[in-house]
């Protein structure tokens, strides 16, 4: 009995000590601004620098970077964006919709210095913050465009431009751009893809929107790989124009290239077994179209 009390007391001490040590390394805000679209905050804890949107409304980190090891990708969802390499290991042209702290395009630029990389970000303040605090900068081959993703892709399609690797990462904020969830948008995305291109879309894994989005992607692409990790709230959709390669090929591919992704912290060889084409959504849900796309209302329900 007494032993127990002592043990509890010790635990209490440990917890208190932990709390105090946490407090001493509490996130320091190094930059705050209110842009046209959101509140932007940059914080730093030790070597870990993070970009946050709308902190007051309880949003999570958009992106984090280790200042002393800038190659390392901190979040599952940024690492998961590279899962498309299992299907397209050597992209020559890359499109990233949504800049954030710039870690996805910078990793691509580091991996493929000769690839042409276009980044589209709607908020010029985010571009500025990425440049000032996250070491992002345009290069000869990498350009960030301040534009909305949908007209950018529509225009690229009309010009007949295609990309080998497309990352859609515009949905992690507080507000969902509903016009980039629709069937018509996905058709426009398809128009900038070739048979070898891969699309990796960071989407919602919770709420009714998951069903609606899955139905819409399936109508547009047919079967796609659904990629979830137990440690992450994100769901990646990996899609191609033609039929998907069997998982066996992905395993081989991961063996071949996993080593090159190690320094970024991407556990690529762990990914193939997480990919599935199994339907785990309600297929009777309505497809999202330009006529019907209440994404922001569906998320809350």
């Amino acid at each position, binding site marked *: 009995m007494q032993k127990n009390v002592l043990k509890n007391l010790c635990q209490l001490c440990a917890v208190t000590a932990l709390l105090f040590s946490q407090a001493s390394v509490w996130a320091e805000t190094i930059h705050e601004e209110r842009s*046209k*679209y959101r509140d932007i905050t940059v914080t730093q804890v030790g070597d870990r620098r993070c970009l946050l949107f709308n902190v007051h409304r309880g949003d999570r980190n958009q992106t984090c970077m280790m200042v002393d090891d800038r190659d390392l990708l901190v979040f599952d969802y940024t690492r998961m964006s590279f899962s498309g390499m299992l299907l397209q290991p050597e992209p020559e042209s890359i499109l990233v919709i949504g800049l954030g702290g710039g870690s996805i395009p910078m990793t691509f630029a580091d991996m493929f210095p000769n690839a042409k990389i276009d980044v589209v970000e*709607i908020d010029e303040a985010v571009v500025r913050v990425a440049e000032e605090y996250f070491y992002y900068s345009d290069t000869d081959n990498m350009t960030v465009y301040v*534009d*909305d*993703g*949908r*007209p950018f892709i*529509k*225009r690229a399609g*009309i010009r007949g431009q295609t990309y080998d690797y497309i990352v859609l990462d515009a949905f992690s904020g507080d507000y969902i*751009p*509903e*016009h980039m969830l*629709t069937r*018509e*948008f996905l058709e426009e995305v398809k128009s900038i893809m070739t048979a070898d291109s891969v699309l990796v879309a960071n989407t919602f894994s919770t709420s009714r929107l998951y069903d609606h989005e899955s139905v819409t992607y399936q109508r547009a692409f047919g079967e796609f790989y659904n990629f979830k990790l137990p440690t992450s709230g994100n769901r990646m959709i990996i899609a191609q124009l033609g039929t998907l390669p069997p998982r066996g090929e992905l395993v081989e591919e991961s063996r071949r290239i996993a080593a090159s992704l190690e320094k970024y912290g991407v556990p690529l060889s762990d990914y193939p077994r997480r990919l599935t084409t199994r339907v785990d959504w309600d297929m009777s849900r309505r497809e999202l*179209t*330009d*006529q*019907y*796309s*209440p994404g922001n*209302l*569906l998320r809350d329900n």
Partner: protein
Amino acid sequence: MSKKQARVLPRSVIASLAFVSGFCIMTIEMLGARILSPYFGGSLSVWGSIITIFMLALSLGYLLGGRLSTKNPNAITYAMFFIGAGAFSLPVILFADPIMEPIFMAIEDPRYGSLFASIFLFFIPTSILGMISPYSVRLMVESEEHSGHMAGLLYFVSTLGSAVGTLGTSFYFVLWFEVNQILWGAVFSLVLAGVVILLSSYLKNLKSANRSATYAKKRA
């Protein structure tokens, strides 16, 4: 001092119609962003374009509607505002893509692209909807003394309609219906409002004709 005039329409009818017009204006405006976003995106400037064009169109409509109300205010003109606004909203439903496509191709900057698209899609129907308010005031006012009272009542009702239209569209309609279905609803309501005006003015004329006939009979 006040000069009494026969009313063309019952006040309750005019007030309800002003509600309908306010409702439809905001329903169409709220859907405007949804209609433009496939071409011009969802940036703040697209909302800016839409609101600017709606405000300009309404202001011109107020001016013209007020001017028109000075000459022989009558129910048929009033009805035509509703039916005309409904008819000129049809291109938003039927030809939105052929209207926006050439603008999208010609103008790279989404700010000016969305501004021009808003002009071509929304300017005319919104101007006509703007004519309804001053004309309604004229139809409701019988004497100088209560003109302010009537104007206030109309602003109240039509702005209330706008509030309900905004909330209904953004909270519920987009969840229940397709964009074009909602627009068809607005067009239908406007045309129906026009028909109601024509009918009730016809009935009123009939009644007053009967009354004067009875009066004439009594005199005889």
